[in-house]
C-alpha cells in the first residue's frame, strides 16, 4: 500500500464527491424548499449526459456540446416542472414518489427509443485528455482534475449565491420555513421554478461531466441517485453545506472502501474470505455510514429546519 495509490484514491474520492455534490445540491433544495420528493432527478442527470454527447458529436465542438447540453437539460427540467411536477407540490409524499417513479420509466424508455438501450460512447476532446504529473510518481487523468475543479468552483458559486444574494436569502428562508416565505408575498411559484431549474442544470452538469467516465445508458440516473439520497440524509435535507460535506464524506468512504477494504481485510482474514467479504462490505459501507449518522443525528449533520 503505497502513498501514490492512496493519493490517487483520495483524488478519486474527491472527484466522486464533487459529482455527488452537484446532484445533491439541487435535490436537497428541492426537498427542503418545495417539500417535493423527486425521484426523477436522476433522469435529468441522464439527459445531460446524452444531450451533451449528442451535441458534441453533431457540432464537433466540446464547448458547444456542453453549452447546448446544459441548456437542453435546463429546458427539459423546466418543462417537466411545469407540466408534471407543479401539481405534486400540494400532494403527499406517496403521490410524489409514485408520480416521479412513473416519470423515470417514461424518461428511461424515451432515451432508449432515441438512442437505444446499449451504452453510447462518450468521448472527451484532446485538450482535456491525457495525464498530469502530480507530486511524486502520481500521474492523474487531467479530465478528473477538471471535474474536481469544476465541482469546487460550483460549490463556491453556490456558497456565494446562497449567502450573499437576495435569491439565496429567499432560498435559505424557504428551506427553513416554506409557509412564511409564501406568506410574505414572494412569488413562490417563480421561486420554485428557479430552484428547480438550478437543480436541473446542476444535475445536467454532473451528467455531462460523468459521461466519459461512467457508462452513458438508460437507467444510469438511478444507479447514482440512491447514493445521492444517502448524501442528503447524511448532510441534512435543505442544506447545501450539508450536501457538500455529505457528498465529500460519501465519495471518500465509498472510493476508499472499494480500494482498500479487501486488502485490509486480507491482513486479518483468509484471502478467500477477504475476496468475498471485501467487495460485499465495500458496497454496503456508505449505507452503514448512513445508519451510524442517523443513530446519533436523525436529522442529518446540518439540518436546515429549526
Amino acid at each position, binding site marked *: 500500500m503505497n502513498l501514490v495509490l492512496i493519493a490517487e484514491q483520495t483524488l478519486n474520492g474527491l472527484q466522486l464527491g464533487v459529482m455527488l455534490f452537484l446532484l445533491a445540491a439541487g435535490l436537497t433544495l428541492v426537498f427542503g424548499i418545495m417539500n417535493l*420528493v423527486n425521484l426523477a432527478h436522476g433522469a435529468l442527470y441522464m439527459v445531460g449526459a446524452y444531450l451533451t454527447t449528442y451535441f458534441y458529436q453533431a457540432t464537433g465542438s466540446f464547448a458547444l456540446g456542453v453549452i447546448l447540453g446544459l441548456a437542453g437539460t435546463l429546458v427539459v427540467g423546466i418543462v417537466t416542472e411545469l407540466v*408534471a411536477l407543479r401539481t405534486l407540490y400540494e400532494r403527499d409524499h406517496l403521490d410524489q414518489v*409514485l408520480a416521479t417513479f412513473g*416519470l423515470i420509466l417514461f424518461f428511461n424508455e424515451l432515451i432508449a427509443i432515441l438512442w437505444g438501450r446499449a451504452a453510447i460512447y462518450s468521448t472527451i476532446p484532446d485538450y482535456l485528455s491525457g495525464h498530469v504529473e502530480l507530486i511524486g510518481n502520481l500521474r492523474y487523468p487531467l479530465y478528473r482534475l477538471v471535474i474536481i475543479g469544476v465541482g469546487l468552483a460550483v460549490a463556491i458559486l453556490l456558497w456565494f449565491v446562497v449567502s450573499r444574494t437576495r435569491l439565496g436569502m429567499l432560498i435559505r428562508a424557504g428551506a427553513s420555513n416554506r409557509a412564511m416565505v409564501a406568506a410574505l408575498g414572494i412569488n413562490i411559484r417563480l421561486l420554485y421554478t428557479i430552484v428547480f431549474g438550478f437543480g436541473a442544470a446542476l444535475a445536467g452538469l454532473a451528467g455531462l461531466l460523468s459521461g466519459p467516465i461512467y457508462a452513458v445508458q438508460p437507467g444510469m440516473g438511478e444507479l447514482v441517485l440512491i447514493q445521492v439520497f444517502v448524501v442528503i*440524509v447524511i448532510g441534512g435535507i435543505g442544506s447545501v453545506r450539508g450536501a457538500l460535506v455529505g457528498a465529500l464524506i460519501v465519495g471518500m468512504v465509498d472510493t476508499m472502501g472499494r480500494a482498500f477494504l479487501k486488502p485490509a481485510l486480507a491482513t486479518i482474514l483468509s484471502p478467500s474470505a477477504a475476496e468475498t467479504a471485501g467487495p*460485499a462490505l465495500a458496497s454496503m459501507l456508505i449505507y*452503514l455510514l448512513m445508519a451510524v449518522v*442517523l443513530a446519533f443525528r436523525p*436529522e442529518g449533520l446540518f439540518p436546515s429546519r429549526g
Partner: protein
Amino acid sequence: MALSPRTWILLALLLLLAAVPPAAAYFGQPFYLDLLRRVMIFAIAAISLNLILGYGGMVSFGHAAYLGIGAYAVGVLAHYGIHNGWLQWGLAIGASALVALAIGAISVRTSGIYFIMITLAFTQMLYYLGISIEEYGGDDGMRLNVRSQFSGLIDLNDPTEFYYLVLAILALFLYLSRRLVESRFGLVLQAARSNEVRSRAIGLSPYPYRLAAFVISGALCGLAGALLVNHTAYLTPEFMNWTRSGELMFMVILGGIATTSGPLLGAAALLLLEDVLQGWSVLPKWVHEHWQLYLGVILVLVVLFAKRGLAGFLPGKNE
C-alpha cells in the same frame, strides 16, 4: 351473516380465482394459471405493504428487500441441500422479521422524506450485497432446482396444487390483515397516521406500534418471497431492486390504500396491465417494445387523477 357488500365481492373474487385451474385445464390455457398465481403472490406482498403504507401511512420504499430475503432464504438453503419447506419458509419469515427489525429500529424514528430515502437506501444496500456474493450467483442469481418440500403434504411441482396453496395463503392473509387493522393495535396505527400530534396528546407513542407493524409487514413479505422463488424457480438480486419496491407501492395505491381488497385488485391490475402492454396482439408493436414508456405515463396519470384507487369504485362503506 351480516357481511358488507365489499366482503361479498371479495369472496366472489376469491371464488373466481379458485375456479381458474379447472377452467384453464378445460380451455387448454395453462398460461393463465401461471399468470394468476403470480398475481396472487404479489397480492400477498402488497397486503403486507398495505399494512404499513396504507393503514400506517409509512411510505416505505424498501419493501422489495423482504421479497429478496425470503427468496434467498429458500435459495441458499436449497443450495446447501436443505429442501425442507418448513425450514426454508420458516427462515424466510424469520430472517425477514429480523432484518425489518434492524432497519425499522433506525428508520421508523424518522418520517417524511427521510423515511422514504432511508428505506430505499437500505434496500439498495441489500441489493448490492446480493450482487457481490458470488457464491450465490452474484448478479446472475441462482436457479432453484428443487422446490420446497413439505414431506409429502403438498407437491409444489404440481402447478395446480401450488396454485391452491397460494390461494389459501392469500385468503388467510386477507383475513388476518383485516383482523389486525380492526384490533386495538391496528386502530393505534391508523390513529398515528391520521393525526400524530393528537395521538401523543392522548398518551400514545407511535414508535413501538409502527416498529411492530414494520416487522410484521416484513415477515409477511418474506413469505411472499419464498412463494415467489418457488414460482419462478430462480432468484436474482433483481428481486430486491428498488423498482420492484416501486411496483409494490403502485399495486397498493392502484388498488386503493387502506382497504382490504385493494392489494389484490392493485396487483391484478398492474400485472395484467404490464402483460397487456407487452403482449396483447391488439396493440401495435411499438407499444410492445416500449411498454414501460406507456406504463410510466399511465402510472403518472393514475396518481394525479385516480386517487381512491380501484377499491374506490366498489360499493359499500367508506373506510
